């Protein structure tokens, strides 16, 4: 138990500082076997030593876990936005506060839905915790909306890119479709708050890195690997995609 705690701390330090050398030094103190598991060679997401999560996209339930992770991040973000002491001063417009509160409620409902769907099918719900770079200022309107835009565009692209892993299950494919268009409605509204009544609500030219094409009128479509890389700065646990 004590070794596990030390190792967990070491893993945390590795993630926060990006220092592989520091990690290997600490891991070396603990012996080779444990060090290997902490290096990510252990694919068992339930390992008490390794809180990191590996998702196998060949399994529809793991695609649900992926959706859960993204919704949990969004729900946490908007809960912090609306719950922030400066919410009504950062967002002096009641209409804007309603939009953000609605979106919070939607993301919480999405998170709870995917959790319920996982539990109903006997799967475990990933244990995840969030973190925010210092650039995210919950008391600042522009910072909140810019971060929200990033999350919503990423969410749309994530669902569109995950559909190929759900073709074996049209029930789940349709559910994902029911959620993704709501995320697209969100990003439209958020973008419009940043640049009202312009083409910004559906300007796809600034998300070509997410697979969008303004010339063809196509929204984003990003692989789980790309999405997780973009989401990782906001999640303490490392999420790895396999079976792609």
């Amino acid at each position: 138990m004590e070794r596990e705690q030390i190792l967990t701390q070491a893993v945390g330090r590795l993630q926060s500082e990006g220092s592989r050398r520091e990690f290997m030094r600490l891991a070396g103190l603990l012996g080779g076997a444990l060090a290997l598991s902490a290096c990510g060679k252990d694919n068992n997401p339930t390992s008490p030593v390794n809180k990191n999560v590996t998702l196998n996209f060949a399994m529809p339930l793991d695609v649900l876990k992926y959706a859960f992770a993204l919704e949990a991040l969004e729900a946490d973000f908007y809960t912090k936005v609306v719950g922030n002491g400066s919410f009504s001063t950062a967002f002096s417009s009641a209409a804007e506060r309603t939009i953000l509160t609605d979106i919070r409620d939607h993301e919480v409902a999405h998170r709870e839905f995917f959790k319920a769907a996982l539990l109903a099918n006997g799967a475990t719900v990933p244990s995840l915790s969030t973190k925010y770079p210092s650039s995210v200022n919950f008391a600042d309107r522009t910072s909140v909306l810019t971060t929200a835009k990033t999350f919503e565009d990423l969410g749309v692209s994530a669902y569109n890119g995950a559909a190929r892993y759900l073709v074996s299950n049209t029930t789940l494919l349709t559910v994902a479709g029911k959620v993704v268009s709501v995320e697209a409605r969100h990003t439209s509204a958020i973008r419009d708050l940043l640049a009202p009544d312009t083409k910004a609500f559906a300007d796809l030219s600034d998300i070509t890195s997410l697979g969008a094409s303004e010339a063809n009128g196509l929204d984003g479509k990003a692989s789980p690997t790309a999405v997780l890389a973009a989401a990782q700065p906001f999640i303490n646990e490392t999420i790895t995609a396999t079976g792609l």
Partner: protein
Amino acid sequence: MNTTNVMDLIDPSETKKLFARRDAIKAGVTAGLAMGSLPMVLAAMAKTAGAQGTNPTVNDVLNFALKLEYLESEFYNIGTGLQTFPAEYLGPNGVFATGGPPKAVFDQIAKHENSHVALLKSALGAAAVAKPNFDFTGGKGAKDANGKYNGPFATVFTNKDIFLALSQAFEDTGVRAYKGGAQFLISNIPVLETALQIHAVEARHASKVRRIRAEKGWISGRTNTLPPAAQGVYGPGNPASTYPAEDNTTQAGVNVTALAAISGTVTAATASESFDEPLDVATVLAIAGLFII
């Protein structure tokens, strides 16, 4: 928590068929399968098995989408002035007169709809359907003594409120149509993904148009400000069990209103807003048909 296993959603007879189709399950999936995921995978196979034979082909779905995109593109091309104002409509075009909606928004929407038409025509090649003739007044081409279409929305291009209402109806219907069509594109992943990418763009459009009309960007129950003739946009499809109305609060057997919210449980309004509903081809074509001559 009041939840139902996804397994319960399928016909038991389909499950039996599955055991004769076990070779259809990818070896890798079987090898890595945790016990807990078995019901979901079985349900998946059953859905696919049951879907064979009676469903629209990929080209059918693409042509269905193309019809809707033709409708949207012509509507916005007339409204934004991309196309010469047709003599059959009451004019002059007053949609973007002073005090009208922001034209930059509709220029962007028109651009996308034209791109969608081009993309679908290119994908279909010789199989692409021809553009129908439209009457956006909803009168099936009937004309008054002056030769103008005189359906219930006769002022569609002179009254911005009518134009905006139809825009919302078209965009929200488009979202439902692509969502309903996706399940028939699973045999062709690139086409499925392209359709979903269009689907999300239509949802961006819908959200903005709804907000211009002082509705929420998301569909809340079946309450809306569209005229009575357009109420089908938010109603059930056929069968309603597969294509529920937009006030649906049960998803994949999970009662969303029983789930935890920030305070208490999820309200019916939030449950409705959080999930958009698909619509079947026939119901969509019935709605679009109001505007096809």
